[in-house]
């Protein structure tokens, strides 16, 4: 069954906005509600919109299962590397060595109620990004596996 062009155009228009919203939730995970898992789920629902709007053979040209498996493994690897990088420097597992350094995500948090600074948190935003990459890959693999079972009907 072929979806109408209204559905396809709506999916095409909405997909970048869903992508930006999910990336916003992931990147601001240490400041506002949300984080890696929630943002990754929102990104995966954007991928789901594309998968449902187009036919299986068309959408798998864009959303490849190998790519999603690679994303999942990359996220897990980034998380483990971020956790182990503190041990290389001589501190404990998961130690937040990046936080007061002044480099990337390294500003110290101002005292009192001020405007939130995105450039804080140390390893926590990096782990949010890793979890986000992992979740979007994992949920997309689940949806692709589900859709491949009924590909002659859609």
């Amino acid at each position: 069954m072929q979806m109408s062009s209204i559905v396809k155009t709506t999916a095409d228009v909405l997909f970048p906005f869903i992508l930006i919203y999910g990336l916003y939730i992931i990147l601001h995970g240490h400041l506002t509600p949300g984080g890696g898992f929630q943002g990754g789920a929102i990104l995966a629902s954007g991928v789901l919109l594309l998968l449902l709007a187009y036919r299986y053979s068309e959408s798998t040209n864009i959303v490849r299962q190998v790519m999603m498996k690679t994303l999942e493994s990359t996220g897990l690897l980034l998380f483990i590397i971020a956790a182990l990088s503190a041990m290389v420097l001589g501190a404990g597992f998961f130690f937040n060595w990046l936080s007061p350094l002044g480099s990337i995500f390294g500003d110290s948090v101002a005292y009192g109620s001020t405007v939130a600074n995105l450039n804080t948190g140390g390893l926590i935003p990096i782990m949010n990004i890793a979890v986000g990459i992992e979740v979007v890959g994992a949920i997309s693999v689940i949806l692709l596996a589900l859709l491949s079972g009924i590909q002659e009907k859609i």
Partner: protein
Amino acid sequence: MIEMILHAFILIGMIVAAILVFSFKDLVSAVVAFGLFSFLLAIEFYLLQAPDVAIAEAAIGAGLTTAAFMIAIRGTTKKEGDEA
């Protein structure tokens, strides 16, 4: 006071949606009622000042599981008790 009325409306709506999920024989209608249940649950989480859980519930419960159930129904039968 107005918050209590809102809570009561949402909880009654959740109970009604749950009964509808149980009583519908058409599985697509049951899945839509389940999506409504998840949506009301997300609003209730937000009212109870847990926006973190509310975002997760709205994305997973109302979005992804509804679509996963729809895909599963497309692959099997549309009515409860049908032979495949």
